[in-house]
């Protein structure tokens, strides 16, 4: 049971990482990050079944934080779009040495 759960979350996490690495669109990257968070949440829940409720508490934390992060992140993306008329990260590279 645990092994299956971990395998699913590993697959989910990998999909998220690959999505972050290959996509250029900020919204998609953002969703991929959410996917990674979800994968981690799944791991927590799976472990909590064997090691007590602590994992579930963490899941609630992660969801809260990711909700806040979504709010801030989306607001930033909207602000960028208003200035640059694009959310393609290849074009947003002003902060360089």
């Amino acid at each position, binding site marked *: 049971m645990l092994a299956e759960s971990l395998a699913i979350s590993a697959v989910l996490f990998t999909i998220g990482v690959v999505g972050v690495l290959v996509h250029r669109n900020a919204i998609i990257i953002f969703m991929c990050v959410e996917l990674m968070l979800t994968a981690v949440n799944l791991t927590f829940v799976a472990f909590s079944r064997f090691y007590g409720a602590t994992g579930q508490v963490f899941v609630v934390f992660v969801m809260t934080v990711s909700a806040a992060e979504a709010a801030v992140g989306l607001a930033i993306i909207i602000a960028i779009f208003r200035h640059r008329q694009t959310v393609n990260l*290849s074009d*947003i*590279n002003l*902060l*360089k*040495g």
Partner: protein
Amino acid sequence: MLLQQVAAQAASHPLSGTVAEWLWLLPVLPLAGFVANGLLSLNSARLGPSDPNAPHHHPHSLAAADAPAISHAEQAGAVGDDHHAVKRHRWAGLTSIIGPGVLVASFLLALSIFFAMKGAHMETPFIQRYFSWMPAGDLQIDAAFQLDQLSMVMVLVITGVGALIHIFSIGYMRDDPGYPRYFAYLNLFVFFMLVLVLGANYPVLFVGWEGVGLCSYLLIGYWFSEKANADAGKKAFIVNRIGDFGFLVAMFLLFANLGVLDFAGVNAKATELQAGGALVTAICLFMFLGCAGKSAQIPLYVWLPDAMAGPTPVSALIHAATMVTAGVYLIARSAVLFSLSPVASLTVAIVGAVTAIFAATIGLKQWDIKKVLAYSTVSQLGYMFIGVGVGAYVSGVFHLVTHAFFKALLFLGAGSVIHAMHVAYHRTHSHDDAQDMRNMGGLRRFMPVTWVLMWIATLAISGIPPFAGFFSKDEILGATFSRAQGSTLASATWLGIPGSSLLYAIYALGLISALLTAIYMTRLMLYTFHGPNRTGATEEGYLHEAPWVMTGPLVVLGVLSLIGGWLNIPKIANDLLGLGPSESLHHWLEPVVGGATARIAAGGHHPTVTLEEILIGAAIVIAIAGIAIAFARLKPARLVPKREARQEEGFERVLLNKYFVDEGYDRAIVNPTYAISRTVLWKGVDNGLIDGFLVNGSAAVARGFGWVGSRLQTGSTGIYAWAVVVGVIAVLGAFTLR
């Protein structure tokens, strides 16, 4: 420690409980004057118009309006310069009271201590210990003052002549914008000079030694806005450092071998050193190097003529009467050491004799009145070194005292001449040289008091009896002659030359110098005061005698130059004339230098009366001959003013240019130093190694790292994401595979 034992004895010292307990107040008074005047001078620095750094305004209109004749005195010393602001300092009145006042108070205290001492018949010095200054292992140095007969003589000269010169300065400097600063420096000088002569050990003496050097530097460069004056100050300072190096080495050697540095201890332990050995000779020669620097002897004399850039009273006080005689004092103070080393003593005498004649010849052809006196001072200092070199310490100190009288008088007299000349040129907007004797002439009609007093000083320095210089100079020559006939010096050899023939040569050199002295001093008097006036037709109307505040001190010094010889009248003269106690100074200084004198004179015998009479006769004849030659050969009537004068040729030119010694030093020492500093130290070490390699090198390394870091910051988030993932995989892989 020995000093503490002596200090313990001090409770039972004949001077304890007397006014001598106030010894510490002697230097503290001038120090207080320095602080007060220094504060007053700071006060004005913000005022603007009286600030010497403020933009100069040409003061003629102002000067004509507020016409006290004296109002241009501040410029009198500066050659051909009238760009100083003429503005009397707001605190000038207060400074005129404080500055000379502390000196007079100090002199009165010194007098009362002297009388206490006279009644006490002390054999050992009176030592006051204040605190432990450098307690470091075996090195125990106390801040302590010591009063003995030798310091007393010096203290009286310094405070007495110093007070007179301070009073003279009131008139000479009153309208200088930096008046309180001048008196602050002058007071500070007297403080350090008193520390020098009162110190109970070499380090305390050295503090005073360096302090007077500092004040000398400050006062030579007093008009620092002229580059030449500032340069002269630097030259004096740097040349003196060379001498101080020798003095320091002598102190190190003393401490390393005797373990003590206080005079009482050194005198007690000096006999442990092998008499005539290499060690004591080295100590004395290094110490003499210090004396040569401070007292302007060959080869370190070059700074003294340049030091004339300072105000004339400074030349009188520091560069004639007191500071430059510190070397003579140091040798007399270390008489025990020098008496143990005939070679070092002979060296001192030889250097003194050569300096005496060398400087005297230069003095023959100088046109600047102060330069003549400067070379005369170098020459007379040479005389003093002959005295202390041949072990006639009393005679050396005696000449020091009489020289302080007549040379201070000559300088101050020259000061009042320059002052009068300067005012005359200033009034007529002329830019002629106020110090050049070719522009003077016939001044006795305008300045009769100065004229008479200057003649007294001239006769004194030339060695005409009964003036002061005759007795002291004659004593030195007589002592040299009798040492040549038999003494530890005569039986020693110096670089293979037997001492006695050397001493005869020194005597001959001294005699020739005496002739030259009489010639150049008479020349100075003839060209300055006699013959027709060459100042200029309009200028003549402004020539005038100095005010009483300046002539007053001159009169006192004149009297002293007249009777100063009575301090130490030889017995033979006294038998003839019956003038009172003979050889007073000799008896007075007996407890300090008697032992050392006896050690040097050992094996000799007192000269016979006939011989002594012949020697005295020779000295008088020589002096009179010098004056007569000058009168016969020099024709002031034929002299023309400086701007019309022809170029000197031949040997005259060599003398005028001081044997080109300064140029030689430039070529041999100064320019190579510049060259090394420029190519090796500046271009090589500083620009190459420090700037190029260390500073710019480390900066380049940091910049390289920065460049690499900045290339990594592409601004592309995708690459950052890849970097994170690769990093995580690497870390996880490392943990897994471990």
